[in-house]
Structure formats: structure tokens, C-alpha cells
């Protein structure tokens, strides 16, 4: 037995007696043969002569993989461990931890808050008020308040007052109907219809808005008599069909119609104006939903933890609090008062700065927060919120008092209205992005791409018009990075397109992974051309090996192509170059082109297009570039370019999991065929044949025939726009021409006509350019095709319709990919317009409404779902090691163990909560802390995200917090065995998600940011990008179920689809609904997989 294995095993006992079986078991585990390792250990542990170490090793093995047998195996160990021995204590402690993790959370319906009653069943009220049925009684009123604030009222024409929307009118009418039914149900609250022919039947039907057609008996049919009432009946989910059935069979109809109790924060009296204090608990709901200011106030206070809320309530008059409820709602989530003092971002060092800015000392918590809220209509609170979300050195930097004052004054400007909490979404988007993505160098100074001088010149000379007159003047004196930052902070107030800030973040992100930062002149050029080509810069961010010169060549090419007057040539050139760059990007991302060859490959591809001005040139450039890609990816021999390309697009060079690989290739082939694209090999074969014919060879008529029959399958371009549509948008002609030109290609005819002109015959390959373009563009589409890919399967012209030109007058050729043409029954269906730079997101966006919600009344969450699909589809897991997946699984397990340990030990609780506070806002953290104090680890675990567990575990190890259990030792073992594979950087690449908005890149990575709120201009999109839990959760699940990492390529898109379809969210920030869905789907997968495994095992037996 080697000593190194001791750490490997994590055994609790003397190393001297470890049997050899264990070494073998762990060797098997390390190479991914988990079941074999398990069997071996099981056998060894079950042996009559098994050492206790072996038995423990087996229990710990199961423990690390969340095996359902873990607890019972641990318990079986106890009789063999002497009472009072340290080993027994350790095992007992682990059992205690696992018991806590496994225990269901206590029902939180019994909170300490007073309650009110809502008439009728809660599910009916939830349906009418568009609330998730999963909400707890404690959370319901807060969610309702949000819906009332966002959807309950609208400006009325000609009057200043707001009027109720149809949504709210229906809720109000429903409450009235519910009360009528409740009255009919009597004191018991149970609605009972014993006979068809009775007065109560008549009363009920009248209330419901229905009547019986025909007399009582088996022909009874209920039909609408009062449409308004009937609508409420159906919309609220009253069991009308069951009532009808009971009447028909003259059997008892019974329906529980008792009112529902829901908690009210601080009790109803707190919210009622003094004149209405006598309102009963049943009337409160009517008062609540008809006053949007109360709802906003409720929403604001519900964001605070109880101690902070109490401090505010005590120190600030209610009217003042209510007047700034909007600020509290948007920026109060990070407020924290402890023992009367406000805990400010930056800590005690920053307190004087905050005191000066707010005009009140943090020593008096409530008063300080009140001053913060009202200052400048919420701008100071928004800055406070943005910095409070940070931690570490960046927070220290931004909250250094003098700097903080300087930056805030820049934000504030002279006019502070309107405040950032006035619009429907938070208006400090740019500030949030700047503070969260700012990077400090090793010297502790902010990273400024290029140099201060570049930015100075940008502001002074401003290529596309002045950014800001005052800043243009002040720029002349800039010397330090903070001068640039100050200007950027000043611009965060701009409501319109904030170009310099976007340039700054995009270029900062390009530099983030580069060994050598961009040169000054490169930064200068990129900044100046950002408006036209900025969305292409993601390519440079994603592949840090791209040299400055190649970037400049890219811009030169793009500029040259934009100058082509002929639309067909321009779109073919742009399409070909973008499609080839897109494929190169995919191959770099999947590590199919080694880092050393990436720049050269791109540079060569770009070089091919420098002088390509005709169809023939473009075809040659495209073909040569395909060869460059194949060579760069290590393709050798006579492999068919098309087959090879498809294999590469699956994401691996060598097939590691034939079943998964073949499945993905088949899915891609199906889409390829649905789009009637021409395989690369056929295109090249025709070109070769034409060349050969021009040199006196024979034209391959069979080949041409096959090509022609394929072309005939291309449907004619439909008239894509109705008259009405044409009035709205006048584009699309180039696409129609593109399709029609292809349909007319007939090589036999061309050959006949050119038979005497060899040059003409050779040049006939120019007719293949459009086909080559579509095939290459199509390969990009296919790689990113979302699960189901209904559009790509159904609309055979979807790829061919990609419009690289766009609306006349707006050069969309290099802009983000956008979805156009949804709706309008006469249209040819949606199409994508612009460049291919954000193709993954655009495809997911177009496809999302084909997902079918499994929850009644739920809708697909429009702004979040495309990013979730992108996160499932862009990353590939072919090269991920099973030990990396286990590494993630162990972290999640360790995180849970740490939380459970915190329920048992106060000291650990302090440490765990301290780590969690860097990710979790105060109110949720307080609730977790309270649950832990009560020993309810299950409830605490339920409210922590997988990504938060991951960070918790990582930090717990870094801070040497001892957590009982085998996970930390197993993590150490993996790190020791292969430090590179199990570094945070490697795990970030393996299980991260693409963040095109936050990080300007589709390269998957983990940023470990706090979950973002919704933001103006982005809705839930940035929230979705900051959501890193799904992949981590699925990786841990796969590890638990012993599913190989390569299978994630097939499973993660499907599991994500299921998760999306099971979400029932109440509002755009309802990430808990996403977490619930993730866990429900996970449990379903777990159960199904285990049942199938058991079935297979029984069949084998």
C-alpha cells in the first residue's frame, strides 16, 4: 500500500491496515469505471474478513456519489465501532449531517407574520392573479404586489389618474364572485350540491354564469348564460366539468371553497391608512390590490431582512418611506443594518465617504439608509447597490472615500431627475455592468485598454459625434486611469446608447485572456470602428491568440466588403467570410484547432478574401478557406470534406462516445437535408469536373444530374411580405434574388453554352458560390440548432433566407443577428438578419416559443430562455474528464455538508454565512441563518443555488473550514492527482456558460457573480447570463448517476428543455421558480435513471 493512497481514500483510520483492494478501486474510479470500483469495494466490504477501513471506504465512496444506500451503510457500521472511539464519533457526526441534508424542510406556512384571508381556493386566486402555484403563503403577497405594480394600472386617456388594467379588473371581479360562492358554501366552506334539481344548484349556476340545457338527467349540458361570469369561472379553474358530470348523474358534488390565509408582512394594520384600520382581514386584499403605492411599498420592504426593515420603520416616518418605495424596491436589497449600524460597502474604511455622500452617519442605520434613499432621487442608492454587490479588491478600490466621492459626483451630474428607480426597469444598467466587470491589474490600478491617451483622443476626436461636450473638454487633461473611469461613470447616466462604455467593456474583455494586451493603435482602430463592427469583436475576445494584425486585417476586409456595390456579391462575400470565421470560432472553442495554429488559420482565411471581388474569386476563396480549416483541425488523407466537417461540428476530432456522436450527427444531417443544402463534397466535385471539362475532360452528367435534382428541391422564394408588411419594412429583395438565382442554375446548359470557351467553362464554378455560402452558413446554423429545431426542420428556406444586407440605409451586414418576420400569416416565416456574430442567441430566441410548458397556465420566459438554450447548446463536453465532473459533484456535496454542519455548530455557521454573504443578499442570508439556528438545514439548502454551493465549498476549502465528511479529502485527492484538470480555471471552461453580453464571448466560463436583477435594455437577459447553476447542477447529477461526461452533449440540451418547460415563474426576476424547476427535473431524471438501471440489472440477473 502506497502512502499517497491515504489521501486518496480519505480513510479515517490507520494507514497501515488498508487492504490492497482499495487502491484498485480508486484506480478504477480515476479512469471513470465507477460501477466497477463500486462493485469491488462492495465485495471487499461485504467480505467476512473485511477490515473496518474497507467498510468505511465503501460507505464514503457511496457518500461522495450520493448513493441512496449511503446512510444505511454508515448506520450498519456503528455496531462494529466501539462506543466512545473517535472513529465512531466521526461516523455518527457524518450520519447526523446526512440526516440533516436529507430531512425535508419544515413547512414555512407557519411564519410569525399575521395573516389575512383571501376568498376561495388559493389555486384559483393564483390563476386569476397570474401567480405561481408554488409560492408559499409568506411570499404570495409580495409577488402579488409586484404584479399589481407592473401590470395592474395604466395611464388613462385624458386624465392624470391611473386606471385599472383588464388584468386587475378581472382579479377584482373574481374576488367578488369568490365571495358569492363562499357565501353559498356556508360556514363549513365546503360547497355541496347533493341534487341536480335544487335551489342551491340554481344559485351556484347563476353565480358561475351558466345554465342547464335540458332538464336534470343524463343529457344535462352546462352552457354560458352570462359571459363575464362564465369567463371568471373558467379562468379561475372552477371544476365546471366535474359539476356538470355530477348534475348529469345526480351525484354529490363537493368542492372545498374555504378561504386561504396568507401572511402579511408586519400585519394588515401597518399598511392600512388610519381611516381604514377597521378593515377586516377579509377586506384587506381589496384595499391592497387597488393601491399601487402600497403594493410598491410592500414590495420594497419585502426585499429587506427583518432587522434592517425594523431599523427603517423605527427611524423613518412611514410617509417618507412610502414616498421612496420605488428606490427601496430596486436598490434596497443590499441594505443591511446590524445592531443599529448600517453595514456599508467597503466596510469601516468607506464609512466616512458614505456618510459624506448621504449626509448621515452609518452609525445610525435607519437614518443613514433613509438619507441614502432620498438622495438625488435614488442615484446614490443605485451606486450603493452596485458597489455592495462587489467584494474584495474591486470593492475596496471603488469605495475608497475620495474616489467614491469623485465617481459619484460624475454620475450625479447637475440634474438628478429622473431617478434610476422611476422607469419600469432599473435604469442604472451601465453602472452595474461597469462596476461588476471592471478589472484591476496586478498593480491594483484599473485596466484601461490601450492607454489613457487612446481614450483621451477618443473623447476629443469622437469619430461619430460628441459623446459629451463637458467630457470632451475635460479629456485634454486626463492622465490617470481614474480620469477615464470618471468619464465612464459620468456616461452611465446617459439614457441612450452609451457607446464609450460599451467600447471600454468590449475591449477590456478582449484583453482579459490575452497574454499581451492589445496595442494602442489596435485599441484606437477598434474603438473608432466599434459602431459598425463592434459586434464582431466577440471573435477576438473568444480567441485570445488572435494577433493585433489579424484583427486589423479583419476590419480591412469587412470595410472592403461593405463597399461592394453589388448586393449579391456583397452578401455572398460577407456570408462566406462570416460563415468561415464562425466555423473557425467553433473549432477554436472546441479546441479542435490548437492554440498555436489559431491566428494563422484566421489570418489565412481573411487573406483569401482580400482580392475576391467576383463570384469566381469568392468561390475560390471559400474553397481554399475550407481546406485551411480542415488542415488546421488536423484532417489528413482523403477524408470527405463534408463528413469531416460534420464530425468536427459535433465538437470532437476523434470519436469518444460513438452512440452520442452518431446521434448528434444524425440530428445535424436531418437539418442539413431539411434545408436542402448541397454537401461540400458535391460542390467541390462539380467545381473539379468543370475545371477538368475546361481542360478537355468529360462533363460528369450523372453528377450534374444529381446536383440538378437537388436544386429542384429548393422551393421558390415565397413572396415574403404582404402589402402591409412592405409598408413597415422594405427589405428582403436580396434574399429572394439569392434563392431564385440558385434555382436557375443548370450546369448542363452552362456547359453547352460554354463548350467552345474553356475559360468560361472553368469560370462556371462561380455559379457554385451561392451554394457554398449557404452550405457554410447552414453548418453554423446546424451546430447551434436548439433542441427540436422546429424552424430549421419545417422552413426549408430558413438558412437561404439569412439576410446579410438588411434594411436599406442601415448597414446590418456586421451587426448582431436579429430575428425578423414573426407573426403575419402571409409572411414566409421568420428569418435572421445581420451578421452571424450572435447566431446562437438569435436561433434560440426564434425557437423558444416551440417549447411547450408543462405547467398549466405557465408561459415560456421570453427573455431568459434563449440564454438558457445557448448555455446548453454552445458548450460541448467531449473533452471533459469524469473526474472533473466528480470534482463538481463533490463541491456541491461539500457545500451542502457545510450548510448542514452550520446547523450544528455556531462557529461554523458564522464562517459559512460569511462566505455566503459574498453571493447572497442580506434578506435571503438572514433567512438562511435563521433556518440554521433552528436546525432546519433542509430549508436553508433549499434556498441556496448550486452555483452558490460550489463557491461555498471552494471558499470553505480555501479558508480551511473543517467540514465533517469525505468530500474535502476527495477534492484534495483529485487536485493532487491532476492539478491542471482540477483547477478552477479548467472547471470554469468545462462547466461554465457563454456570456455574450456580460463577457462579450461565447466561450463558456464561470464568473461567480451574484445573480443580477432585471435591467433596463436587457430585461432578464443579464440575469440569465449570471445564472450559472444549471450546468453545474447537471454535471453533479450526471456524476451521481454515473453518466459519462460525453453523454452531457446529448443530455444537457434535453434536460434544459425540460427545465424550461417546467418553469412557472410569476415575474421576470423569479429565479427561485427556475431553481424549483431545475430540482424537480433533476429528481425526475434521478428517479427514471435509477429505475431503468434497476430494471436492467434485474434483467441481467
Amino acid at each position, binding site marked *: 500500500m502506497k502512502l499517497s493512497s491515504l489521501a486518496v481514500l480519505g480513510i479515517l483510520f490507520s494507514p497501515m491496515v488498508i487492504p490492497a483492494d482499495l487502491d484498485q478501486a480508486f484506480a478504477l474510479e480515476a479512469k471513470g469505471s465507477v460501477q466497477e470500483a463500486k462493485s469491488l469495494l462492495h465485495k471487499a466490504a461485504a467480505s467476512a474478513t473485511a477490515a473496518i477501513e474497507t467498510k468505511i471506504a465503501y460507505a464514503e465512496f457511496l457518500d461522495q456519489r450520493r448513493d441512496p444506500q449511503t446512510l444505511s451503510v454508515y448506520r450498519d457500521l456503528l455496531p462494529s465501532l466501539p462506543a466512545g472511539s473517535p472513529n465512531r464519533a466521526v461516523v455518527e457526526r457524518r450520519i447526523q449531517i446526512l440526516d440533516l441534508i436529507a430531512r425535508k424542510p419544515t413547512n414555512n406556512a407557519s411564519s410569525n407574520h399575521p395573516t389575512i384571508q383571501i376568498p376561495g381556493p388559493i389555486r384559483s386566486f393564483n390563476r386569476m392573479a397570474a401567480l405561481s402555484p408554488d409560492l408559499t403563503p409568506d411570499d404570495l403577497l409580495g409577488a402579488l404586489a409586484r404584479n399589481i405594480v407592473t401590470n395592474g394600472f395604466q395611464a388613462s386617456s385624458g386624465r392624470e389618474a391611473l386606471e385599472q388594467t383588464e388584468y386587475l379588473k378581472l382579479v377584482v371581479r373574481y374576488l367578488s364572485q369568490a365571495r358569492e360562492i363562499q357565501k353559498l358554501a356556508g360556514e363549513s366552506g365546503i360547497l355541496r350540491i347533493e341534487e341536480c334539481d335544487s335551489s342551491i344548484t340554481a344559485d351556484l349556476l347563476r353565480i358561475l*354564469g351558466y345554465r342547464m340545457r335540458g332538464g336534470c338527467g343524463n343529457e344535462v*349540458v352546462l*352552457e*354560458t348564460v352570462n*359571459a363575464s361570469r*362564465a*369567463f371568471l369561472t373558467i*379562468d379561475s*379553474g372552477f*371544476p*365546471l*366539468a*366535474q359539476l356538470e*358530470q355530477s348534475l348529469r348523474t345526480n351525484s354529490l358534488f363537493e368542492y372545498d371553497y374555504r378561504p386561504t390565509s396568507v401572511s402579511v408582512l408586519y400585519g394588515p394594520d401597518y399598511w392600512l391608512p388610519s381611516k381604514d384600520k377597521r378593515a377586516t382581514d377579509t377586506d384587506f386584499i381589496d384595499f391592497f390590490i387597488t393601491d399601487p403605492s402600497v403594493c410598491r411599498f410592500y414590495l420594497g420592504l419585502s426585499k429587506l431582512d427583518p432587522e434592517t426593515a425594523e431599523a427603517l420603520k423605527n427611524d423613518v416616518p412611514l410617509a417618507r418611506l412610502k414616498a421612496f418605495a420605488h428606490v427601496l424596491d430596486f436598490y434596497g436589497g443590499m441594505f443591511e443594518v446590524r445592531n443599529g449600524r448600517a453595514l456599508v460597502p467597503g466596510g469601516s474604511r468607506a464609512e466616512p465617504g458614505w456618510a459624506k455622500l448621504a449626509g448621515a452617519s452609518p452609525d445610525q442605520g435607519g437614518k443613514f439608509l433613509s438619507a441614502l434613499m432620498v438622495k438625488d432621487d435614488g442615484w446614490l442608492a443605485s451606486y450603493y447597490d452596485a458597489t455592495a454587490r462587489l467584494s474584495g479588491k474591486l470593492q475596496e478600490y471603488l469605495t475608497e472615500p475620495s474616489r467614491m466621492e469623485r465617481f459619484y459626483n460624475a454620475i450625479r451630474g447637475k440634474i438628478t431627475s429622473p431617478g434610476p428607480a422611476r422607469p419600469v426597469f432599473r435604469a442604472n444598467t451601465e453602472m452595474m455592468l461597469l462596476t461588476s466587470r471592471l478589472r484591476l491589474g496586478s498593480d491594483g490600478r484599473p485596466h484601461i485598454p490601450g492607454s489613457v491617451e487612446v481614450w483621451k483622443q477618443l473623447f476629443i476626436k469622437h469619430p461619430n459625434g460628441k459623446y459629451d461636450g463637458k467630457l470632451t473638454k475635460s479629456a485634454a487633461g486626463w492622465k490617470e486611469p481614474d480620469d477615464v473611469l470618471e468619464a465612464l461613470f459620468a456616461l452611465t447616466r446617459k439614457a441612450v446608447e452609451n457607446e464609450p462604455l460599451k467600447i471600454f467593456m468590449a475591449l477590456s474583455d478582449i484583453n482579459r485572456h490575452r497574454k499581451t494586451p492589445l496595442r494602442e493603435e489596435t485599441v484606437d482602430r477598434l474603438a473608432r470602428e466599434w459602431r459598425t463592427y463592434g459586434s464582431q469583436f466577440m471573435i477576438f475576445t473568444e480567441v485570445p491568440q488572435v494577433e493585433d494584425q489579424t484583427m486589423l486585417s479583419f476590419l480591412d476586409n469587412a470595410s472592403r466588403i461593405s463597399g461592394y456595390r453589388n448586393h449579391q456579391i456583397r452578401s455572398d462575400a460577407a456570408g462566406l467570410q462570416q460563415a468561415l470565421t464562425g466555423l473557425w470560432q467553433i473549432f477554436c472553442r472546441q479546441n479542435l484547432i490548437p492554440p498555436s495554429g489559431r491566428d494563422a488559420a484566421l489570418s489565412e482565411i481573411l487573406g483569401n478574401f482580400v482580392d475576391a471581388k467576383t463570384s469566381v474569386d469568392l468561390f475560390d476563396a471559400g474553397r481554399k478557406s475550407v481546406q485551411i480549416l480542415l488542415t488546421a483541425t488536423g484532417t489528413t488523407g482523403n477524408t*470527405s*470534406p*463534408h*463528413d469531416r466537417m*460534420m464530425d468536427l461540428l459535433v465538437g470532437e476530432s*476523434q*470519436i*469518444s462516445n*460513438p452512440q452520442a456522436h*452518431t446521434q448528434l*450527427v444524425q440530428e445535424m*444531417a*436531418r437539418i*442539413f*437535408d431539411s434545408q436542402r443544402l*448541397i*454537401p*461540400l*463534397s*458535391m460542390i467541390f*466535385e462539380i467545381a473539379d469536373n468543370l475545371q477538368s471539362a475546361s481542360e478537355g475532360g468529360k462533363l460528369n452528367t450523372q453528377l450534374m444530374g*444529381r446536383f440538378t435534382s437537388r436544386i*429542384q*428541391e429548393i422551393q421558390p422564394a415565397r413572396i415574403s411580405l*404582404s402589402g402591409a408588411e412592405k409598408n413597415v419594412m422594405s427589405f428582403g429583395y436580396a434574399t429572394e434574388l439569392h434563392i431564385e438565382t440558385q434555382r436557375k442554375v443548370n450546369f448542363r446548359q452552362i456547359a453547352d453554352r460554354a463548350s467552345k470557351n474553356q475559360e468560361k467553362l472553368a469560370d462556371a464554378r462561380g455559379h457554385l458560390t451561392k451554394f457554398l455560402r449557404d452550405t457554410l452558413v447552414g453548418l453554423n446554423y446546424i451546430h447551434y440548432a436548439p433542441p427540436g429545431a*422546429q*424552424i430549421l426542420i*419545417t*422552413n426549408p428556406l430558413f438558412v437561404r433566407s439569412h439576410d446579410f444586407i438588411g434594411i436599406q440605409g442601415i448597414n446590418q451586414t456586421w451587426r448582431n443577428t436579429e*430575428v425578423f418576420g*414573426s*407573426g*403575419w*400569416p*402571409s409572411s*414566409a*416565416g*421568420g428569418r435572421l438578419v445581420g451578421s452571424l456574430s450572435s447566431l446562437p442567441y438569435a436561433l434560440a430566441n426564434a*425557437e423558444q*416559443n*416551440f417549447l*411547450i*410548458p408543462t405547467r*398549466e397556465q405557465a*408561459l*415560456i420566459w421570453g427573455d431568459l430562455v434563449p440564454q438558457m438554450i445557448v448555455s446548453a447548446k454552445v458548450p460541448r463536453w467531449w473533452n471533459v474528464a469524469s473526474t472533473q465532473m466528480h470534482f463538481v459533484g463533490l463541491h456541491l456535496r461539500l457545500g451542502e455538508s457545510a450548510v448542514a454542519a452550520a446547523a450544528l455548530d455556531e462557529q461554523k455557521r458564522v464562517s459559512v454565512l460569511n462566505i455566503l454573504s459574498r453571493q447572497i443578499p442580506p434578506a435571503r442570508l438572514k433567512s438562511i441563518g435563521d433556518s440554521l439556528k433552528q436546525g432546519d438545514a433542509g430549508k436553508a439548502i433549499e434556498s441556496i443555488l448550486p452555483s452558490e454551493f460550489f463557491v461555498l465549498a471552494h471558499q470553505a476549502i480555501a479558508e480551511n473550514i473543517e467540514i465533517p465528511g469525505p468530500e474535502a479529502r476527495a477534492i484534495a485527492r483529485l487536485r493532487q492527482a491532476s492539478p491542471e484538470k482540477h483547477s478552477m480555471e479548467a472547471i470554469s471552461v468545462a462547466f461554465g456558460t457563454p456570456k455574450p453580453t456580460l463577457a462579450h464571448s461565447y466561450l463558456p466560463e464561470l464568473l461567480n457573480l451574484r445573480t443580477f436583477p432585471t435591467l433596463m435594455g436587457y430585461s432578464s437577459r443579464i440575469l440569465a447570463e449570471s445564472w450559472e447553476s444549471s450546468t453545474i447542477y447537471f454535471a453533479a447529477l450526471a456524476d451521481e448517476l454515473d453518466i459519462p461526461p460525453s453523454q452531457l452533449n446529448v443530455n444537457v440540451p434535453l434536460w434544459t428543455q425540460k427545465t424550461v418547460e417546467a418553469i412557472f415563474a410569476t415575474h421576470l426576476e423569479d429565479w427561485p421558480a427556475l431553481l424549483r424547476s431545475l430540482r424537480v427535473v433533476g429528481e425526475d431524471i434521478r428517479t427514471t435513471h435509477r429505475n431503468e438501471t434497476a430494471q436492467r440489472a434485474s434483467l441481467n440477473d
Partner: protein
Amino acid sequence: MNISRRTALSMAVPLLGGVRLLGQDATFKVKVDMVVLSFTVTDSKGRYINGLKHTDFRVLEDGISQKIVTFAEGNKPPMQILDDGSTRPLLNAEAVGKEGVGEGRSDAFVGTNVFILFDTSNYMYRGFVYASDAIADFVRGLDRADSVAVYTFSRNLTRAASLTKDRTDAIVGLRKAVAGDDSAIYNALLLTLRDAAKVPGRKVVIVFSNGPDNGSMVAPDDVRVVAEDEGIPIYVISTSEVNKDSISSGVFRRISTRTGGKAYFAKTWQKQVEAFESIREDLGNSYTLTYYPATNPNEGFRKIGVEVISDVGKKYRIRARPGYRPSRIF
């Protein structure tokens, strides 16, 4: 390790018709599914002609005569046509089964699988409850042999009641429908057709909507092609007046007639009930036959022709889908 994709793909092929190579790489194979063809026969006055036998018909595909495998009239149980032209009740549905939902059901070819697609978008807000009543009446009145599924849609599709013979289940699902927001009718219709295509036997989709679409990503004609290929007639009951939204009306007409269905413009509840009655009659008076296509090199659109052989039959009108495209496997 590197395996040949062609080998792997070939192993997965259950039943192959024509085989075609494109270039030397991608291999596409035409899958010969049994073709299910439903059609009605009417005289010049639009009256249904009943009582015809399989021997009264000739089925052509691209002009190639086809051998009928099963034949049924209305909701009567289908008959298997033997080689000598005699018939016997089709007992073993698996003999002609197709993979998917309902596989192995012995009654899979008896009755019609009716998929109702109910528009619950904002556009239907005012007529929502009346529409619900009309659909409930239709469901109650379906032939006992029929199965019914109720789907609803606004921006997304909801499977309110899966395919069932139990009318109460279907009506419970229907009555749970919730009013929604935007309308993506063609997206929803496509998804409904995809579900229906998995069911063996005869099936129809009935769309109940007032027309406008502001959310679909697929074009009506692309959806229509799917229905044609799968042999699923689409019936549309529009609650809008025919002239009010001429774009939607035109589309409704086109997708229904091209798939062998019909479009009704029924603004009032009474007209909606009448439309449903007409559909029910159509279902009860239609013929359904199946055949395995004879060898045909055409891998594109195959034109189907149904003829009544007798002289008198030449005056009859036959309403059927015009053709289909054979599916491919990879």
C-alpha cells in the same frame, strides 16, 4: 477510434425504399411509411356518397397504381384487403402500425383521432366562453370510436387534454383552459401536427381561432406541407367574418383545402355549432384507405390521385390531400 457514419446509419434503418447518395458523403434514405389517405366523395350537389367499396376506387401516386392495404368507411372498423381482393376485419393493428404514440393499440385504426386546437389568445377574449361551450358540445357528440385531444395556444402551446376516448377527460382539460396573450397559431398548429403524426390511424386537426397571428416563426404554408406529408386534414373554424381579415381567411382556406379539410367562418355561436356538425359529418362520411407506395424514383412531392372507377363515379367530387413528400431518415 473512428467509425463510418454510413454503417451506423444503415443499422438504424427499419424499412427502406429508394436509396440515394448525395455526393459521396451524406447518405439520405427514403423511408416508406404506409400512406394513410382519407377522403370524402360527394355528388355535384355536395351530398356525401356512401356505401362505396374498395373495388370502386383506384389510387394513383404520380400516375402509378397503388395496391390498397386497408379500407374503411366512416367510423366503421377498417377491413384488410387480401391479395385475392377479398376482405377481412383488420384485427391486428400492429401489422400496419407506425412507431409513436398509441403504437400497439388494437383499435388504433378504428375511429378518428381528433386533435382540437383552441385559440385562447387575447384575440379570442370576447368569445372565449362560447367557443369553449361549442367545443365541449362537439367533443360530446363525437363518435364513440373516435379519440380526442384538446390543445390550447396563445404564445405557447398547452396540451390541455392528451388523446383520449374519455370525453369527460377531454372536457375537463378544455374547461381548464386559461386566457393567454399573444397568438402564435402556426407554431401551435405545427406542434399539434407533430404530435398527431405520432399517432397511428386516421387523424384530423381542428383549429378554432379567429385568425390573427402575431407570434409565429413558421409560415402557414410550411405548416401546411407538414400536414400534407403526414396526411392530416386540417379543419379551421374561424370566429371572424370572412371579409374582416382577408389575409387570415385566405390562409385558412388554403391550408384546409390543400390538406383535405375545410374552412368555416362562423362568427356566431350557432354557426360554430353548425361548423362542428359539418366536420362531424365529414368524419362520419369519409373513406380511409392505406397503401404502401409502389416503387417510385420520385423523392420529392408525390402526387396522389383517387378515382372512382365506375362511369357514374366520374361525376363525383373527391376531396383528398393532393400528395406528400416521403420522409427521409439519416
